[in-house]
C-alpha cells in the first residue's frame, strides 16, 4: 500500500502545558491520510478537531507523539525548514477568510509568493490565473473589505492554492457563509480535490458537508471516535473487501451527528422497535416536511410524494396512513399559527388579553379536545383555556402544564387522567414548537 501523506502518530496536544490552566485538547490521535484524500474532521465545538488541524499545519506542536508529513517528522524541522514546509506543502483557508485588509485582492492572493521572494510579473500571472478560475478577477484591484463573504472566501481559496501546495487545510471555511454561497465554496473545494488533486483536511461541525469527504473522522472530547469511509464516493485507498463495512450507523450519524457509536446503535434499534419507517424514509420525510413548513410545496404535492414508492423518488407510505399524516400536519400547522398569532398579539398589548386573543386560545383548546377525545364541562373548559394561555404565553413550563390539567376542577384543573394529560401535553408542545419558531423567524 502507498505511504500515507500525513501520518498522525499517537499525537497528544496540550494547551498551557505545565500551567494551572493546562488543558489537553487531543488525547492521543492516530490517523493515516493518503495523497488526494478529502478528509473531514467532524465533531461538536471544543472536540479538538481544529487543534488537530493546526497541528498538521505545523503551528501547534504535539505534547506527545509525532506528526509526519511526507514521511518527515515536521516538528523536528529547523525553523526555516518549517517556514518552507508551510510555504510549499501547505495551504490554508479560514472561517474568517483572514485576508489582509490593507492590500488589494491580487496582492492578497499573491502574498505567499511575495514572502517566497517571487518577482512581481511571475506572481501576478499566477495570482491572476487563480482569480480568474475562482471568478474574482473583476475585483482584483479592490480591497478585500469591499467584497462579499463568498467572494472573500474564493479569494482565500485562490490564495491557498497560489503556492501549489500538496495539502489544503480548511477550518470551517463556510461557517460564516449563507447556504447558497457555502454550497458554491464547497463545490470549489471539491474541484480542488478532484481537479487539482490536493489532499484536503476540512474541519466542520456541519453534518450537511459530510457526504463530500472520502472519509470522515468523528471526534469528540479530544479523541477520534471512529473514521468512516463515505460509501457515496470512490475511495482513494482501495480497502480489501470485508475490512470495513458501511452500516446503518453512518446514516443515523447524519441525523444525530454528535452521538457516540453506542448511542447510535441504540437509536437504530429503537427505530426498528417503535417505527415502521426506516432511517432512509425518515431522512427524506424530514426534508419534505421542511418544505411544507416553509410553504414551498402544498399539501396535495406533499401527499403525492408521501405515497409515491421509494424507487420513484417518493417515501412509500401507504395511502391511508399518508392521508392521516397530511390531515394532522395541516391541523397542527394551522393551530401553530394560532399560537404564533396569540403570542404576537399579547406581546403587542403588553400581556393583556383581549377578545381576539381569547378566540385563538379557544380554537387551540377546541383542537386539543377533539384530537384527544376530551369531554369537558363549562367550568373545566374555562380552566383549560386558562392553563393553555399560561403555557403558550410562556409563564409555565411543560411539566407545570401536565400537572395542572390533571388537577380536579375544584382545584382549578381540568381533571384529566394520566394518559389523556400526556397526549394533550405532547400535542400542545408540537404546536408551541412550530409556532414559536415561526414567531422567531418573522
Amino acid at each position, binding site marked *: 500500500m502507498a505511504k500515507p501523506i500525513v501520518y498522525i502518530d499517537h499525537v497528544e496536544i496540550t494547551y498551557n502545558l505545565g500551567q494551572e490552566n493546562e488543558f489537553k485538547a487531543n488525547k492521543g490521535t492516530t490517523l493515516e491520510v493518503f495523497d488526494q484524500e478529502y478528509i473531514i474532521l467532524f465533531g461538536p465545538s471544543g472536540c479538538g478537531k481544529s487543534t488537530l488541524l493546526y497541528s498538521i499545519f505545523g503551528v501547534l506542536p504535539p505534547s506527545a507523539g509525532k506528526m509526519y508529513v511526507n514521511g518527515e517528522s515536521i516538528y523536528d524541522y529547523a525553523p526555516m525548514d518549517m*517556514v518552507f514546509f508551510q510555504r510549499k506543502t501547505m495551504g*490554508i483557508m479560514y472561517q474568517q477568510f483572514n485576508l*489582509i485588509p490593507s492590500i488589494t485582492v491580487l496582492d492578497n492572493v499573491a502574498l*505567499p509568493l*511575495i*514572502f517566497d521572494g517571487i518577482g*512581481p510579473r511571475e506572481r501576478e500571472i499566477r495570482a491572476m490565473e487563480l482569480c480568474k478560475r475562482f471568478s474574482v478577477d473583476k475585483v482584483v484591484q479592490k480591497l478585500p473589505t469591499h467584497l462579499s463573504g463568498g467572494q472573500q472566501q474564493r479569494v482565500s481559496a485562490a*490564495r491557498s492554492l497560489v503556492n501549489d501546495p500538496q495539502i489544503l487545510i480548511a477550518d470551517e471555511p463556510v461557517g460564516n457563509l449563507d447556504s447558497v454561497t457555502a454550497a458554491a465554496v464547497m463545490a470549489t473545494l471539491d474541484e480542488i480535490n478532484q481537479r487539482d488533486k490536493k489532499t484536503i483536511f476540512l474541519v466542520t461541525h456541519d453534518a450537511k458537508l459530510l457526504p463530500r469527504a472520502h472519509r470522515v473522522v468523528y471526534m469528540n472530547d479530544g479523541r477520534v471516535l471512529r473514521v468512516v469511509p463515505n460509501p457515496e464516493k470512490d475511495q482513494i485507498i482501495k480497502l480489501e473487501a470485508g475490512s470495513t463495512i458501511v452500516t446503518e450507523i453512518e446514516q443515523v450519524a447524519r441525523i444525530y451527528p454528535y452521538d457516540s457509536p453506542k448511542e447510535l446503535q441504540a437509536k437504530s434499534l429503537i427505530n426498528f422497535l417503535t417505527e415502521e419507517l426506516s432511517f432512509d424514509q425518515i431522512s427524506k420525510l424530514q426534508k419534505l416536511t421542511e418544505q411544507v413548513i416553509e410553504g414551498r410545496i402544498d399539501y396535495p404535492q406533499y401527499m403525492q410524494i408521501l405515497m409515491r414508492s421509494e424507487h420513484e423518488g417518493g417515501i412509500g407510505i401507504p395511502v391511508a396512513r399518508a392521508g392521516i399524516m397530511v390531515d394532522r400536519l395541516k391541523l397542527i400547522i394551522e393551530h401553530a399559527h394560532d399560537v404564533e398569532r396569540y403570542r404576537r398579539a399579547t406581546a403587542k398589548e403588553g400581556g393583556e388579553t383581549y377578545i381576539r386573543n381569547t378566540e385563538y386560545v379557544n380554537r387551540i383548546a377546541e383542537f386539543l379536545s377533539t384530537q384527544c377525545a376530551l369531554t369537558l364541562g363549562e367550568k373545566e373548559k374555562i380552566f383549560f383555556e386558562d392553563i393553555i394561555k399560561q403555557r403558550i404565553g410562556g409563564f409555565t413550563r411543560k411539566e407545570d402544564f401536565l400537572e395542572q390539567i390533571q388537577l380536579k376542577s375544584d382545584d382549578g384543573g381540568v381533571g384529566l387522567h394520566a394518559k389523556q394529560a400526556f397526549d394533550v401535553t405532547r400535542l400542545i408542545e408540537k404546536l408551541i414548537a412550530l409556532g414559536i419558531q415561526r414567531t422567531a423567524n418573522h
Partner: protein
Amino acid sequence: MRLHDIGKLSTRMFKTNPARTWLTIAGMGIGTGAVVTLVALGFGLQNIILEQIVFGETLLSLSVSSPLTRGVQLNDAAIADFRAMPNVKDVAAMAQFPTLITMKGLTGNAFVQGVDPAYYRYIGASAVAGELHTEKNKNTTTDGVVLTKALLKLFDIADPKDAIGQTVTFRVLVPVEGKDDVQEVPIDRNYRVIGVSNDDAFISAFMQLSELRNYIQITQYEKAQVRVTASEFLAPDTALIIGKGYIVTALSKTVDQANKIFSGIQVVLAVFGSIALAVSAIGMFNTMTVTLLERTKEIGIMRTLGASSQDIKILFLSESVIVGFLGGVMGITFGLIIGGTLNGLVNLAAANFGGKAMTLFSFPITFLLFIAAFSAVVGFLTGVFPAVRASKLSPLDAMRYG
C-alpha cells in the same frame, strides 16, 4: 522577500492609519526639529566668532615678536633666519612707531605700521571700505595708507567710506638709540586714504614698509608673520622659533580653543534637543507597540502564509525606520523654517538699527545629512523591541489573539 515588496508592505500604515502615522512622524519631527534648531544655533554662533578671525592663510601664520627683555632682536637678520627655516613659505615683517596723525585739520595719537602687502593676509585683516595694499597695486599706492576702523573713531568718522580719499600727514615719533627719549620725524608727504581695515581695536595706519623706510631707519621690527607651508608644521616651527628666544602666538591655537568651547556649547544645546527627541522617540515606541498589538492577528495570518519570523521582523523594522527617517526630514524642515525665520528677523532688525547682518543659525549640509541618518537610527531602535516581539509570536496564538 524583495526590497520593493518590503517597501510596499511596510508603508501600508499611510493608507490604513494615516492620521496616526503622520502624527507619529510629526512627533519625531518636533523632537528632531528641536535638536536641529539648537545645534544650528551653536554652529551659527561659532561661525560668527570664527568668521572674524579665520581667513585662509591666517591660520597658517605664526605671529612672532621679540621679548621685552630684548635678549634677541627682531631685525633683518632674524627675518632672513626665519625665512631659511624648513617649511617656511614666507615671512612678512611689520615695523611700528607711535605717530601724530593729521586729517581734516585734526591731529591725534596713533601708530604707523609699515607692512608688506602679504602681511594683511597673514594677520587676517580685510577691508571694510576701499582696498588694502596688494602685490598688484603696491607700485601705484606708495602714497596710499590704510586706516583701521578704530582710527576712524578717533576722527569721528562713522562711515568708513567717508574716509576714502582723505589726505593725511604723519609726524612719526622715533625712539632715539640708547636713550629713553623720542625724536619727532615729520614725513614731508601727503598720503591719501585708500582703504579702511576691519580692526576696530587698534588705532593705527598702515603704509608700505618700503615707503616708511624712505623716512625712517628701521633697525628693529615690532612683529613678523611667519607663514608655514602646511598646518602640521605649525607646532614644530613654533618650537623652533621659541627655541631662538622669541615669543610666538598662533591664531590657530585660539581657533582651536574657540572650537573646543563651541563644541561644548553644541553638546549642551544638543542635550536639550535630545530631551525633546527622547520624548518623541518614546512616543514613537509607544505607537509601534500599539501597532504590534493591532497587527497581532495579521502577523499570525502572514506567518501561516509562509512569512518567516525574520520577514515579520524586517517588516516592523522597516516601518519604524521609515517613520523615523521621515520624522527626521520633517524635523530638518522645521529647523530650517525656524532658523531661517529667526535669521530673517535678526537681519531685519540689524538692517533697521544699523547692526551688522549675521547668520545666527547655520545648517551645514553634513550636519543635516547626519540628522536624517540619525533619526532613521532612532526609528530603528524604537522598532527593535516590538519587531523582536512580533517575530517571536507563535502564529496560532497571534491569530487567536485577534
